[in-house]
Structures are given as structure tokens and as C-alpha cells.
């Protein structure tokens, strides 16, 4: 029993929590940006795959690591453009289009990988982001080892949380994005373009999602595997509701999920003999479902979410 609590005192556990949470932070931020503007983006799962694959491939082909990050973001924005074109000016079903984007992006990534590497037994590797050497704080007991295990990519995730929060709360652009997800007519009547705002938000959100994927291949691991995204995108969709579309709460939700996942990995080794490991594997997902059920019932959805807008129709 004490061993179960002892996990919480290990720096290793907290370091893993942050590592697991990082791609989710990007994903939830991206999803909430799209949804704040009124567009559900179920392409997220596929955009994760495309970001992971394209970012990794760019680095493998010789670009610097940050170049890979940029390539991943651009790939995400490109899929965001496709999703946006279909759902915003054309007003197609956001569910159907999103699932279509996921299938397209996933398959295109796998296909591209197979074309590039037809005959490999072990996946080719790259040199990923190195752990940070944090000055001063890195030397503190307990906190130090946690920080020193993180990479610059994780720092970028935390910067993005602040950035998205600041833009949404404090700038005319953020005001317009929040307004367009609530009542596009209000935006139109003030002389702003609903289509441009929504397209922009979907592309920026999709770029963030792709960064979540790229983190896995450029920082957490050093190669691209099939099936490595493993539902992380869907978890982000649930966490977005949990976060009530707020960047700060998105960070908390992602960290909670990361902590549960890190915890179940460690408790398996302790209690694995008694309880089947699958039970532990389920834990984070059970948490997402439970949180969703509890929070979603009184969630304050953006009023215009999933409602296409056509100019001149009231």
C-alpha cells in the first residue's frame, strides 16, 4: 500500500506526467481554438499522425529539429485548410468531414512512410530534442530532476498555453474568435469576415494539433511508428469539454490525464500480479469518460458550434 503512495514522491513520475501531457496540451489547445470559432475538428487524430510523420521525416531528411517543428505545423495547417474549406464556406457536416480528414491524414502519412521506406525492419531513427539543462532550478532537489528531463518542445507547449490564453482574452482577434463561435451574425454585422476568422482559427488550431504529434516523434521518441498516436486525438476532444474551452483548464486537464497514465504504468509493476494490467491501462480513459459525463452535462458549449453560417441568411 505504501508503495502505491511512494510513486507520487518519485521525480521520475512527475517528469513522465509532464511528458505524457505535452502532446495533449497542444491537442486540446488546437481543438479549443477551432471550437471557440464554432468548428468541431474531428480531424485531430489524423492531424496528430500527419504532424508526427511529417515533422520526423523533415528532420530525417536533414532539416534541423526546429525545422521539423515548422514542417509539422505547416502540414497541420494544410489539413486545417481542407477541413475549413469543406466546413466553413461549403458548410458540410463537421462530423463527417472531420472523420474523413482523420482517415485521409492517417492513411496519407502511412502511405508516405511506406513509399519512403519500402524495406525497413526497424524504423529509422533521428536524434531527438535533448533534455534541457535548466540553470539554477535544475540544481534544486526533487524539482531539478523533473525539469532536467524535459525538452524545449515541452517549454513550447507551456508558452502556447499562455499565448492562446492571452490572444483569446486580451486582443481584438481573440474577441472576434470568441464572438464568431457564439453568434456569427454579430461578427458579420460589425464588418468582420466570418469565413476568414473561422478558417484562420481552424488552420491555427490544426497546426497546434500537428505539433502534438510532432512532439512524439521529435522529443518523446526518436522514430515514427504506425499506430503511435493511439487515440490521443480523441482524448483531446474530450479534454476540451472538460476544460470548458479555457486554455488554463486545458493545461490542468492534460496534466491530470498525464498523471493518471504515468501512475498506472508504475502501479502495474507493483500490483500487476494481482490485478490484470488491462484494468490499469483503462484508468486514464475511464477518467476521461467520467470527467466528460460529469462536466459535459453543464458545459457551456459555444452557441454556434457546428452551425454553418451563410451570409445573407437569417
Amino acid at each position, binding site marked *: 500500500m505504501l508503495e502505491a503512495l511512494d510513486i507520487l514522491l518519485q521525480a521520475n513520475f512527475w517528469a513522465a506526467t509532464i511528458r505524457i501531457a505535452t502532446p495533449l496540451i497542444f491537442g486540446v489547445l488546437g481543438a479549443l481554438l477551432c471550437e471557440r470559432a464554432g468548428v468541431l475538428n474531428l480531424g485531430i487524430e489524423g492531424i496528430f499522425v500527419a504532424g508526427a510523420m511529417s515533422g520526423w521525416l523533415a528532420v530525417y531528411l536533414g532539416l534541423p529539429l526546429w525545422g521539423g517543428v515548422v514542417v509539422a505545423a505547416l502540414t497541420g495547417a494544410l489539413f486545417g485548410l481542407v477541413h475549413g474549406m469543406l466546413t466553413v464556406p461549403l458548410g458540410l457536416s463537421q462530423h463527417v468531414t472531420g472523420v474523413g480528414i482523420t482517415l485521409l491524414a492517417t492513411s496519407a502519412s502511412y502511405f508516405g512512410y511506406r513509399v519512403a521506406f519500402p524495406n525497413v525492419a526497424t524504423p529509422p531513427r533521428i536524434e531527438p530534442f535533448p533534455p534541457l539543462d535548466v540553470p539554477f532550478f535544475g540544481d534544486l532537489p526533487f524539482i531539478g530532476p523533473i525539469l532536467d528531463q524535459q525538452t524545449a518542445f515541452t517549454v513550447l507547449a507551456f508558452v502556447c498555453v499562455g499565448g492562446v490564453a492571452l490572444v483569446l482574452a486580451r*486582443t481584438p482577434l481573440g*474577441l*472576434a474568435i470568441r464572438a464568431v463561435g457564439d453568434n456569427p451574425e454579430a*461578427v458579420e454585422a460589425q464588418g468582420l469576415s466570418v469565413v476568414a476568422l473561422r478558417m484562420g482559427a481552424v488552420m491555427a488550431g490544426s497546426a497546434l494539433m500537428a505539433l502534438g504529434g510532432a512532439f512524439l516523434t521529435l522529443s518523446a521518441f526518436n522514430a515514427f511508428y504506425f499506430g503511435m498516436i493511439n487515440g490521443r486525438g480523441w482524448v483531446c476532444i474530450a479534454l476540451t469539454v472538460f476544460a470548458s474551452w479555457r486554455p488554463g483548464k486545458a493545461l490542468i486537464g492534460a496534466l491530470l490525464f498525464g498523471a493518471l497514465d504515468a501512475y498506472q504504468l508504475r502501479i502495474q509493476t507493483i500490483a500487476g500480479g494481482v490485478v490484470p494490467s488491462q484494468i490499469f491501462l483503462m484508468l486514464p480513459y475511464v477518467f476521461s469518460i467520467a470527467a466528460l459525463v460529469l462536466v459535459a452535462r453543464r458545459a457551456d458549449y459555444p452557441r454556434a458550434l457546428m452551425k454553418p453560417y451563410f451570409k445573407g441568411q437569417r
Partner: protein
Amino acid sequence: MDRRMHPDPRPLVLSLIGITKRFGPLTANDHIDLDVRAGEIVALLGENGAGKTTLMSILFGHYVADEGTVHIADADGELAPLPGGSAEAALAAGIGMVHQHFALAENLTGFENIVLGTRPLWSFGLGGREARAKIERLIAESGLAVDLDVKVARLSVGEQQRVEILKALYRDVRVLILDEPTAVLTPQEADGLFATVRKLSAKGLAVIFISHKLHEVLALCERVVVLRGGAKVADRPTAGGDRAMLAELMVGRAIPTRERPPSMPGAPVLSLTGISVGKPGERDRLEDADLEVRAGEIVGIAGVSGNGQGALAALVAGLAAPRAGQLHICGHPAVAADPRARLAADVGRIPEDRHRDGTIGALSVAENYVLETIGESENQSFGFIRRADIRARAVEAIRAYDVRCPGPGAAIRALSGGNMQKVVLARVLEREPKLVLAHQPTRGLDIGATTDVHRRLIAARGRGAAVLLISEDLDELFALSDRIAVVHAGHLSPAMDAENLDVKTVGLMMAGHSAGEAA
């Protein structure tokens, strides 16, 4: 005529010349000319479909006119053509519009809604102190008091409208279009709005006031432009005009005055005793309400939307069960939320939202006509629909209620609002119910269709039905009701004799004053 030689010395700010807009075979605007001068309050009067909204949408850049030009005065007072199809250009030229359905983001505060779109998107901050000072100055000048830091969702409808007007004023508009602005207000709020509009026009603002309420047009506006069937049929000063004349111009024929024989109430049909419905925290609920509607009378329920009318309608229609109290229909207790049992107890309901609750858009006129009685033997045998019989009866109803539609097999969503409502009326009234629940039965209908609905309700009363009329239109309530009760924040006043009531008293009660204070 040379515009410069006009006897009115005030400068022209807006001039529409030969505006024409066609949608397929329909000509929504047919060569309309309209001049508006600084400081003038012009009414734009017309029935639904007369082309008012299309004209204003062209002015505000939602549509592009097929023919004709819009000229607006620039800063020096020179008229310059306005490029079409751009709300941004219209705003920049000084045209502001307050839509009937507010264009407000409810998740933002009043302040945020007002400054939305007024600063470059790629900048930081929302204009802070400077913007706030300007808004506060506008509030002081116009009397449009509103809390700027509360989310719009928490503001009352009247306050939301004030935010809408402030939004336009903040952009220094020279022409303000108000689209049916009083539809959502109590009479006192409407008076407040009129005072504001007069104040603003005295400062030189030109106001276009879109309405179909004739007394408001006569009270507020100095000139009235009447549209009918897409064309301008009159442009004259309101002085010397009266309601009958305006109504005739608007409809194109004389409106028959309503025949309303004296009421001869019989036994109670609907009776509520100490009824409470809805959650205690909600605004749309009833608390300890007493009401009686007798056979052969129309009882009107007045109130601003969302003060308990929804709860009352749901209770009577059998969609909500009361928390406390007794409900009797024709002397029998009826408590459970069971819409089927209500139909069986001869309650007919005309729902508030005919699109959402009154009809099923994808089904045909005939299918909608038998929706409530599909289980009865005249409509089905052994579980199969008797299509030929239903069709025959639908054809009969279409004729009797003068429903304009391609035929009984047409999808009902293709019908206009008035014709859709006629199908609902036919469905409800042909069963000769003992109790008719009419919730906003004329909302969104033009004068012709409204007159028809009123005639039918009075006829139902004449044959001995009890009618519960819930409406926000005080003209309608006073025209039809034998007794009127007022609902405010869940509290229902006793029903008062309509003969001895005046609009002012009801208006004050709608705002929450008791009958004693109001009288």
C-alpha cells in the same frame, strides 16, 4: 425633381435611387426611391414580404441590388455612391442597423460587443480607457443605461437592445436603422426607446424605423414610406394620417373591423389552483398560480416573453407536470405530464413555434393535418394509414382554411408561415376542442393571416370553446380577450375584465408592478 430645391432645409444624408432586387421570379424590391434627411425619423411600413427587410439588407450590404444605387453623404455632406455587398463599407459610411434578432455575442460583455471589430485584429488590447470613456459619454447623451461589464446573456432583452444601439452609436453612425425594435419590449420600455430616438434625431441622426405597428409609426415618425409587394406605394408625412388609412395603404384593401359578439361564459373548462411549474430558480416558471378559463370566453395572458408563459403552455399542453397545485380540465383532475391524455380530453394546442413544435417540416400537408389523430380509426385501420381518406379530408381542410399550397402532398416546410399556421389551425379547430391553447398564434404573420387567425379564435369562442391566449402583442390581447391576466417572473395576476383595463396598466404589470400600484 431637383433634390436641392426641396422645401426641407435639412441636408440629405441618404438617397436610394431605383433599387431593384429579384430572387428568381420574385421581385422583392421594384425600383424603390427613398431619401432620408439628417435628423429625420422615417417609418418604413409594410407587411411581411413587402420588401422592407430586403431593402434594408441591400443598404447594409447583406445583398447586392440588381439595379439602382445607394448614395450616402460623406463627411463634407456630399452624396457619394456606396459600394454594394459589404457590411464593412456600410459601417464605414455611417450606416448602423439594429436587427430584430440581435446580432450580439452572448458570451461577451456589452463592452466587448460594442468594441468588436472596431480595432485592427492584429493589435493588442481592446481600446481600454479611451473606448470606455466614449461609450460612457454616449450613454450619458442618449440615456441608454446598461451595465457594460456583464455578459450579454445575463442582460434583459431591453438592455440587449440598448447594447445594440450603443454599438451603432459607437461607430458614429449618421443613419440608424431600427428593425421592428419594439417587438420585444414592454410598452414602457418602448416609450423609453422612443424618447432616446427623439433625442438622437434632435442631434441630427437620421433614423429609419421599420415597423408594422401603426400607432407607433404615427407617434414617433414624421414621415412614412409604405411598401407593398416590393414597390413603394406611399411616401407622405404622418401628420394628418390615421391608422385605418395606413393599414389600407399597407394591405392594399380596406381591413374589415372585427366582429366580436359579447361573451356568454359557461362552466369552467380549465382551472388552475395553486399551481407551481418549473424549477424555482428559473424565470420561465409559475408559482402558486390560480386561473380559470370558462367555456365561451377568451382569457389573455400578457407578459414579456420568458416570464412563465412557456411553463403555463407546457402545463396545459401536458408537457410538464406541476410541482404543486391542482389542474382540472372540464372538472376532471389532470395532473400527469401526458400530451396524449390532453388530446383525449379535448384540448387543442396552437404551439408558440410552428416550425419546431407545430409541424414536421419533412412531412406533407396532409400528414401534418392528421398528426394528432393518426391513431384513430378514421385515419388508420389495422395499423395501416388510410391514405385516400386522409388525403380527401386534407383537401377539404385546405379549401375551408384557404391554405395556399401546391396540394396535400406538398412538404409543409415549403409553405409560408401564414399558410403553415392555417394548417395548424385546421388540425386543432376541426376537432372542435373544448379548450384551445393559443400560444403566440400570430407571431410572424402578416395582417391578412393575423386577421384570419383572430376570426377563427373568435369563432371557436362563439361555439363554446374556452380559449387561453398567450401573447406578447397587447393589441392582439385587447382585441380578442374577455379577461386578461399578466404574468411576471412566474407570478400570475388575477384575470381582469378587459373592458376596464388600459394598456398602460398592463404594461406596468408586465414590468413587475402589482395591479394596485399600476392602477
